[in-house]
């Protein structure tokens, strides 16, 4: 087991009458890519803010490199967290923001930042105030990548980025991580887009951690069984059912667990359809019940992401 670089112990955060984090226990290991997934308002940003000491917990402890990051230069200088709504000095241009980052991050790679800015087509000489939402996100993404901090948090870094720019980000993230391994925590509600980049997945819902597992363990951990309702229900008796849909006499049921070869054969012989469940689909099933999954980027219709494979 590798060294633990980030740890949350019974972390809770209460805002007036809302419990944003509910006794969160977490450990992030060195040099892995973590996905912090959950719906809008699930507590992702709050958790990252507290881990980086930008905000304070109501109770519990947040440790980075074994100590609190609060007012601790030795810890702070090794991590980077650009918020989704990051503010910049009023008269700053992207190039000023990059120069500033260079002052504080010892692994800062200016060439890399320049290349990224060119690829994102970021106008580095325009005032940040006047940038579009996507360009603003690009500034944060570039600081996060080029800082090469040992622990880097990305808070929904794709907001306003078009599909091409998002792909650019994911490609650079994988390539640069391969060359310079570090711990990366990527918060997102676009699970389909990021899931393949993740080694470990933490799903937070209503301030609680509901999944904390290696992505590979989660993939293939559920199956959709479809066919005549009677047969499906009989076949799945005693199994954990995550979701059930019916259409007339037909049923489509998402089941947690794996079938043995023998069971697969039985299903086949009963004429039941078995289809795999994607990571996103599984998480959606686990976090929402009947509610809608959170907002998607405009070019990706909600239906498509929500579609249940049959």
């Amino acid at each position, binding site marked *: 087991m590798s060294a633990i670089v980030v740890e949350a112990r019974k972390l809770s955060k209460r805002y007036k009458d809302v419990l944003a984090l509910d006794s969160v226990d977490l450990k992030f290991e060195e040099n892995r890519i973590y996905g912090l997934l959950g719906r809008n308002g699930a507590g992702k940003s709050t958790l990252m*803010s507290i881990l*980086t000491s*930008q*905000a*304070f917990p109501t109770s519990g402890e947040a440790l980075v490199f074994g100590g609190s*990051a609060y*007012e*601790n*230069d030795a810890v*702070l*200088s090794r*991590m*980077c*967290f*650009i*918020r989704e709504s*990051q*503010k*910049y*000095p*009023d*008269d*700053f*241009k992207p190039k*000023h*923001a990059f*120069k*500033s*980052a260079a*002052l*504080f*991050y010892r692994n800062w790679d200016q060439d890399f930042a320049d290349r990224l800015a060119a690829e994102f087509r970021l106008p580095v000489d325009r005032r940040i105030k006047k940038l579009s939402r996507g360009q603003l996100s690009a500034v*944060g993404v570039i*600081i996060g990548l080029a800082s090469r*901090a040992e622990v880097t948090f990305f808070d929904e870094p794709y907001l306003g980025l078009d599909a091409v720019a998002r792909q650019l980000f994911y490609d650079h993230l994988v390539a640069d991580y391969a060359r310079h391994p570090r711990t990366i925590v990527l918060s997102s509600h676009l699970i389909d887009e990021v899931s393949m980049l993740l080694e470990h997945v933490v799903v937070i819902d209503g301030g609680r951690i509901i999944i904390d597992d290696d992505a590979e363990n989660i993939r293939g951990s559920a199956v959709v069984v479809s066919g005549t309702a009677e047969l499906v229900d009989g076949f799945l008796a005693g199994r954990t059912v995550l979701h059930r849909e019916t259409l007339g006499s037909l049923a489509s049921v998402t089941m947690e667990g794996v079938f043995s070869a023998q069971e697969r054969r039985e299903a086949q012989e009963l004429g039941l359809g078995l289809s795999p469940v994607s990571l996103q689909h599984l998480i959606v099933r686990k976090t929402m019940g009947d509610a809608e999954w959170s907002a998607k980027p405009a070019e990706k219709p909600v239906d498509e992401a929500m579609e249940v494979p049959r």
Partner: protein
Amino acid sequence: MSRVVAVASMQLINKWAYVGTPLLVLGGALALSLAIYAMVPTDEVKYGGGSQAPFWYFLVLGIQSMTLVFPFSQGLSISRRAFYLGTLGLFSLMAAFMTGIYLLGGVLEEATNGWGLQGYFFQLPWISDGAWYATGAFLFVAMMFMFIIGFWFATVFKRWGTNGLLIVGFGSAAVLIGAAALSTVLQWWGTIGAWFAQQTPLSISGWAALVCAVLAAGSYATLRRATP
């Protein structure tokens, strides 16, 4: 320590906020004052309050360094302490630099008999009556005072939001009004007036520096738990 210096250098990356704009405000105020002096048809010595313009800009800078630079500093993983010391340090340098310009301007005014117009912008009665270092101390402390007041109010706002700002604002007003009322009731105004009449720019600077120190300590205490 190096991160404190880096905080100061970071804010100087864009020279405008800390160097360009205050000089521009000062230059503009000077030009405007001279234009007015030239138009006033009198041979008497003229004074104006235009030189206070940059002071108001410092108030704005104090507010902005908290509302905008502080959140950015958090994004760059800068501790609140390093941000505070770096920002306050930078502002002290800035105030010292501007004080130097005011003193030089005063010397220039004297040499040119008020720009040839008998108009004085830097050399003002009372402030410039004493030794140069007394004038300098007064200007420096006054600039620091403006900055720290802005910084402190913005810190209160960051920490406790609009409600906090209102409470502190009304609270300070209530204390001042209360003190004034008390002075009236106790008939202290005469004494207070006499006390002020006795003060020199140097002694006022001392008192103001004390207030600055209290406010600066208050800002730091408030900033310790502020969130971006």
